[in-house]
Each structure stands twice: as C-alpha cells, then as structure tokens.
C-alpha cells in the first residue's frame, strides 16, 4: 500500500454556457484598426465586389463584450486539466513532462512571433541559426545525418517517411514492386495509416507471449515486395525489443528501408540510438520527448532525421550553413517536395533547442535514467494492486507500461473505462490504449522524468483506492465522475447516430429541442 492518499479534489465547476448563449445584441469584443477617413475619401465607401460574390447576411456569430469572452475562456481553462496542474503520468504514450516556462518566454517575442516565413534568409538569421544548431543536436542524439523540421507532428513525420520510402523505391525503379510496409501490432496507428495513405499494403506483425514481434514472422513476410519497416522501440507496452538489430538487418538485406518511431524517446535518449539499431530514418516528437508544450493537441513538431544516403529525399528545404551565413538548402535532388506549409512549427524548435541547452550531456542522460527509474518504480507498485496486471514478459520495461485490469473487470464488473472516469475525481488523467484494445481493459502509464516519488505515490494511491472501491462498492466507480466539471454523459449515441450528432451549435439546434439541455 502506498503511504499517500489520493487528494480531496474537486474540479473547478463554472457551469458555463456555450459561447453562443452569451450573445447580446450590440455588445462587442474588440475594436479593429479600421480604414482611415482619408482612404475612404480617396477610394469611396463602396465595397465593389461582384454582386454574386458578396456576403448577404452577416455570419451568426455571437456578440459579446471583451470581459465576458475572456471570462468564458478563462473559466474553460480552469476546467481543463493541463499538465502544469496535475501529476500527468496517466497519459501513456504522450510523454507528458515539464515544458519549462522560460522557454515560453523565449518565443513570446516579436523576433519569433512576428516572423514571416517568406522573408529573406538574410533577415531571419536568428531563426535559421537555431534550427541549424538544433539539427546538429538531433544528429548527435540519433546518429542520423540530416534533419527536416517540416513535419508538424509525429504523424506527419510518419507520413513523410512513408513518402520517402516510396520515393526511394520509385527512384530505383522498384516503385511498383516494393509495395509492402511491415509494422507491428503495438506501433502507433499513424504508422500503418500513413503508409496506407501512400498506397502501401501494410503487414502487421503479431507479438509473441513476451509482447514482442518475432523474427520468424518477420522473415516469413519479408520479400522483394518489402518497401519498408516501421516500428517504435520500446512500443506502447514499454517493452524494449532487444532483437531490433536483427529486425533491421533482415529488412535492409531484403532491400527495405527501416524507419524508427521515436515519438516517445524518453527511455532511450543518449542510451541507444537509431543508427546503431540499423535504422535509416527516425523522428522525435519535440512536443513530447523534448519538453515543448503539447498545446492542447498541436501545433507540434516531428523532427525527421535520415542517414546520408536518404538526404536527397528529405522534404525541401533544409537549413544549412556556409561558414558565414545560414541558408535554406533547396538542393535535394529527389526531395519528396513539401509536406507542410513553410518551415514546420519553428516556435517549437526554439523551445526544444532551449530544452536541450538547459540539460547538456549529463542532463539528457538524467532524463532517460530517471524516466526509466520512475517507470519501473510505478510498475513495481502497480503490480501490487489487486486486479492489476501487466501482460507479456516480466520486466524489460523502459519508459512506460501498458497494464490491464482484465482480472478486476471479471471479478467486479468495473472496467478500465469506469476507472478512467473515477480517476477524474482525484484530479488525474488516465489513458487506456489505442483501439482496438489488444491488451484487454488496458491502461498505459508513462511516468516521465518530471515527477517526483511523492507524485508517483499519489497516482498509485488513487489506483489503489479505486481497486478497493471496485471490490467493495463497484457502483461508486461505475457512476463516476462525482467531483468533476460534469457528471456522466447520458447517451453516447449522440456521437454516432447521424440523427443526433451535432459537432456545431447550429446542427444541435436543428436536431434537438432546447429542453434537452439545462440552459
């Protein structure tokens, strides 16, 4: 049993209406810099657009004073459990860690925020220098030779890598033939999905009883049709695939390209690298591993690295330095072209650069060591909770673990989704798993380096308490949340029934009587 108790929490509950319900005719949120009188007197008042292209009725946006708009969104912010406010180890695979406040100050300057992406290189030397310097750090950390920061997130990086695989084989005249990408059961959905998008057939390797894909199966699917192999390592289970070099050798020998999903690289930073494991490409999520904020879900950044041989295929341009000035190098012969507008999400590159600069060699190693230690501590403790198990091999976990509550569910009827809601009552996040649930009744916990032992104990204590409740008063868990902003959603069919779903207020008003709701 943990010495900690879950805290006596209640979420801020503001009972705030929808923004449209705040509408009051004649109110105004902000005044604009409108056209000067001198201009009007020069050109006349007429908005002489072609009649058929003119908007006839003003958009039905609400009219609200500034103080009320602000109050609305500040209340909503308080009703949002951001990582700064909670012990955010429950969002496994998301690498929730501290995004340092000083880094936010660094980007809240017009020298970042007011930069236009098309201004001349000459006037953007500061941005380019940071990108270039960061590129070099990424090289060291991965063993890759060149980086592109165009992808606006990990999934876009996966998409870019699939595009490179395609381009390489096309260039080699094997475009048609090599149309299969191999991945694993526990890889991120975007790994397969982005390959499918690029027209590949995707082969998903099953895992063995240890939770790892097998050499046997790999060998059985590798062929002259193999275009590439994409995996993370550890995967979402947190289990490190120690045969990884064998995997990449087999694929490379067969003419396939190996690419590495390092979105959550917390467990391997400075410990082991993509190059040595035989990968041709990899990407890091700067908004995860590199301490940049998750931004409520983006904008984000997937830093994409490749070995020398693939440099020419990178999305163009990349940043280069001629000894005097930094510049965009467009000279990538086989570039897959652009995949995202402009230069990715540069403010997040500045943040990630600052993050690495605040750590250095020793700090980076501490990140990995501490993340892995924290995870193994939690692993050790969670397994002592009644009803909790961790499937597959014992141990071998690096930075996260996927647990399951199958036993508890069978014994009490309390499912992982129930626990999810109940964790809310203690001020915690709790992420189950990608779908479909390969691990039954799963939960994935990733205690990064940002949390103290006390923090971990507190999280564990909430799981302990819920386990106790599940066995003693399961209804309490099943009816959760009790201390959140809202109570349980009454009818989930609102999200799947076309007659009920309403992703906009206007759709809602058409479909539902106002009386369904409180306001």
């Amino acid at each position, binding site marked *: 049993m943990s010495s900690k108790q879950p805290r006596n929490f209640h979420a801020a509950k503001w009972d705030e209406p929808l923004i449209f319900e705040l509408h009051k005719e004649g109110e105004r949120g902000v005044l604009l810099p409108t056209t000067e009188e001198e201009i009007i007197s020069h050109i006349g008042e007429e908005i002489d657009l072609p009649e058929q292209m003119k908007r006839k009725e003003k958009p039905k946006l609400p009219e609200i004073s500034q103080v009320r708009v602000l109050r609305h969104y500040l209340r909503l912010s308080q009703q949002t459990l951001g990582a700064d406010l909670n012990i955010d180890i429950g969002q496994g695979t998301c690498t929730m860690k501290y995004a340092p406040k000083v880094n936010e100050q660094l980007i809240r300057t*017009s020298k970042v925020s007011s930069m236009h992406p098309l201004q001349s290189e000459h006037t953007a030397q500061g941005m380019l220098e940071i990108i270039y310097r960061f590129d070099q750090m990424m090289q060291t950390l991965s063993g890759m030779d060149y980086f592109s920061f165009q992808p606006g997130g990990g999934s876009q990086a996966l998409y870019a890598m699939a595009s490179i695989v395609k381009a390489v084989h096309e260039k080699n005249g094997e475009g048609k033939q090599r149309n299969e990408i191999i991945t694993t059961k526990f890889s991120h959905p975007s790994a397969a999905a982005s390959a499918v998008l690029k027209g590949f057939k995707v082969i998903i390797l099953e895992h063995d009883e240890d939770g790892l894909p097998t050499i046997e199966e790999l060998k059985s699917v590798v062929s002259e049709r193999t275009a590439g192999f994409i995996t993370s390592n550890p995967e979402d289970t947190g289990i490190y695939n120690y045969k990884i070099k064998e995997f990449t050798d087999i694929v490379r020998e067969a003419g396939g390209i190996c690419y590495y999903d390092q979105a959550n690289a917390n467990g391997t930073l400075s410990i082991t690298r993509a190059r040595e494991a035989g990968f041709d490409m990899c990407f890091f999520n700067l908004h995860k591993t590199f301490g940049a904020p998750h931004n409520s879900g983006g904008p984000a950044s997937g830093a994409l690295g490749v070995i020398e041989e693939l440099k020419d295929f990178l999305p163009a341009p990349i940043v280069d330095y001629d000894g005097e000035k930094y510049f965009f190098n467009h000279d990538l012969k086989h570039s897959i072209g652009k995949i*995202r507008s402009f230069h990715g999400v540069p403010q997040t590159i500045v943040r990630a650069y600052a993050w690495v600069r605040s750590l250095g060699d020793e700090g980076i190693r501490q990140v990995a060591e501490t993340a892995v230690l924290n995870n193994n501590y939690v692993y050790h403790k969670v397994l002592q909770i009644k009803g909790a198990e961790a499937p597959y091999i014992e141990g071998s976990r690096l930075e996260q673990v996927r647990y399951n509550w199958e036993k508890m569910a069978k014994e009490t009827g309390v499912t992982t989704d129930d626990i999810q809601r109940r964790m809310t009552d203690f001020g915690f996040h709790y992420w189950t798993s990608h779908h479909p649930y390969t691990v039954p009744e799963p939960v994935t916990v990733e205690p990064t380096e940002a949390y103290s032992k006390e923090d971990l104990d507190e999280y564990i204590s909430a799981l302990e308490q819920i386990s106790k409740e599940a066995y003693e008063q399961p209804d309490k868990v099943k009816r959760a949340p009790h201390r959140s902003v809202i109570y349980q959603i009454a009818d989930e069919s609102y999200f799947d029934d076309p007659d009920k779903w309403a992703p906009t207020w206007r759709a809602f008003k058409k479909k539902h009587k106002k009386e369904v709701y409180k306001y």
Partner: protein
Amino acid sequence: MTNKHLYSHPYIPNSHPNIKRQMLDEIGIDSIDELFKVIPEELHFNETLNLPKALDEFRLKRHVEAILEKNESADDMINFLGAGCWQHFVPAVCDEVNQRAEFLNDYAGKTYEDFGRWQSLFEYQSLVGELVDMDIVNNPMYDWAQAAATSIRMAGRITGRTEFIIPKAIHPEKLVIIKNYCAPHMTLIQVDYEKDSGQINLAELKSKLSKNTAAIYFENPSFLGFIEEQGQEISDLAHEHGALSVVGVDPSSLGVLAPPAHYGADIVCGELQPLGMHMNYGGGQAGFIATRDEKKYVEQYPSRMFGIAPTIEGEYGFGDVMMSRTSMRDRINGNEFIGTMTALWGITAGVYLSLLGPEGMTELGETIFQKSKYAMKQLSTIPGVKAPLFKSAHFKEFIVDFNDTGKTVEEINKYLQENGIFGGLDLSKIFPELGECALYCVTEVHSKEAIDHLVHTINEYV
C-alpha cells in the same frame, strides 16, 4: 568555500542520487544500469554526446535572445508579404487564452478531465460553422494545404473517382503538398486561368471534367488575390459531371465575401492563421474543413470532430463524433491518418471569432478590401507600375506588375528592405509567365502612412 551541495536538476526531481537510491531499493535492484540491461551491449551508446554545456535559466535566456536578436521581424519592418501567411491584428485576449498554462500543456484527456478544451473546440467548430454557413466542421488540421488535400481525398472517397482539377493560380508549394498527399490514389489535372482576369478558363475546365473527376478545387480569394467570380458556374459544372465543388477560403474575407456554400461548394476548407494566430515564421498555420451535415460527408473525414451530448444531470458533455471513421480506430481502413494537429490554434480561432463577432468580421473584410484597394490605386500612380495585374475584384492580395519599370522584383525588394520594407513575394520564379511581378498583401494592420511610404519608396527607386 562556495556551495557544493548536490541537488537534482530543476526539471528532474528524482535525479538526486539519494532519491534514486531509495527508489531502487524499493524496486529491489542495485543500479539503474540493470534497468537498461534489456538493451544489448552493442546497442548501448557509449560515446559522449558532446552537446553544448548546460546553461542555467538566466544564461539560457541571454543566449537564445542574442541569437534571435539577429532576426528582423515584421514588427521591425513594414511587411507586405502574405502568400498564405498573413500579418493581422491579434487581440491580446487570444494570446492570454492560448498562453494559459492549462491549455498550453493540455493534451489528450476526455471530456471529464479536459472539459474546457472540449467545450472550446466544440465552440470553435460551431463558430467556424457560422462563418462558412455549414453544419459540420472538424477539429483543426495541420494547415490549409492539408485541409485542401484531405477535402479532395474525401471527394474521391465520396464519388469513388480519382481525378481532381485545380486551376493554375494556386500557390505552387501548396500544390506540391496536395499532390503528394493525394498520390498515389488521385491524379491532378490543372486548368489555366484567363490571362487578363485570372479567372478560371471555363472552357478548358469543361473539357477536362469527366466521369473520373472527383472534385474541382479552387480558392477564393485566389492565391493571386483576385476573386474567382464564377463560383456558381464552376460548382454547377462540377455537379453536372457528378463531381464535387471544393473551395478553399481565407476566413478573413468572409465578412464581405459570400461563403462558398452560397455558390454551390460541397466541401469548404481554408486556413485559420488569420483568426488570431501570430505568424510565427509559419508556425501559426492551421487548416479546417466544413461540409453539410450528411452522413456521406461526415463518414469521410479523417479528423476528430467534437460533438455535444447531455449528461445525466442535463449538463453539456462532449465526445468524439463517429470515431470509427478515423485511423485511431482502424489503422488500415480508417480515413487517412490523425495525430497531434493544431488544437490550440482552433481554440484561439474560437476566441478570435467570439471577440470580433458579426460586426467585427464584417469590418475586417471591409477594411482589408478598402486598404488593399487604396494600395493598388496608389501603386498604379507610379510610372511603369501596375496594380492589380488582373482585371478582377481583389481582396487582401494583388499582383504588382513591375515589368515596365525595367527593374527586377529582386532589385526592388532589396531596395525596399534597405528602407525598412518587406516587399511582396517575388513571382518571377514561381509564375515565370508573368515576368517581373510581385504578390503584395495589405491587411487591416497597414496604415495609410505605411502604404504611402511603400509607394513613395518604390517611386524613389524605379
């Protein structure tokens, strides 16, 4: 003697050896190395990283600020660059909200924990819905280019067809992004624009439409700033051929320009950056898609989409609409892929639209229209300079034709830069057929004085 106390890194509480020891003991192992034993010896990285030395917070700040100081920003200059990323007025409340620790560092929780994020994004969808006058809007995407590409792929899935048509007056980089994204399943066909007006060549369009055409995609205002006036005709043509009309918009125009739904668009997409996002060297981009509320449309979105539902106490709750269509639920058969997109910009766009309201959006459109009109008029007073190049109505952006000045755009821009001005985007390389032309952008942030200064400076030079 100075302080030599051992302590953990501020960002890593458990990096202190005593704490580590305590935890190792609890786990029952000797050293952290044991935890890494699963990694084969030969894969251990045993060299030193040689990263630059760690900096304390103060030195870090000085260091990064010194590098960034080398930038000349659009606040230091008068900026006429647009071309997909535009300098607009960003209300302080937008910054306040998106800098709130809660939103900044939130991610992937459910409606029960992250309620405010869900409500904000639902509201965002709803507000954009009003702006484009459509019932379905998705969670924000990477950028307009991706939104356009996805719109086209959606059209492909809806119609079961594989060709899409795009007029040539589009940002070439955006075209590349779209092509990349639509390949290999869909094929691009381009139609030319009318040389004098920029408008789509309807005859050519007709000739290229076929039973293979999934969609015709065009933008309003177009990349080159003119208004495509034949919106209804183009949509009608598409529909006659069983194709969809897909229109990309700059939402800052929608206070004065008809929303595409009013001239037949089936799928509308566009760029959110003008709605409260700083340019951020391109990091302010975010895309959106909107459609009618029909199952055949909704089921083709790849994106998350937040819907509303009552709780047992009659409160508002939120959830994912038809998650089954996404790659998160089916990585093979789901639509395209999703991951971390641009949620914070969605929230921000919602704040922006709430602040401006119907009157603000109308004024915004009018102001941009008027100021850019004034700029064109004044630029045209310069001998040899003509703006706009195209005989069409324009909004926000327009081509300035310098061919008759004998100077290249490159030369002119260099001179402008020396005089504190970022001139318009040089089109001579990306639209070589136009010769020495530049794409200028004028928004509500440009004062008469700034425009006059531009005109004066060009006049001085040419």
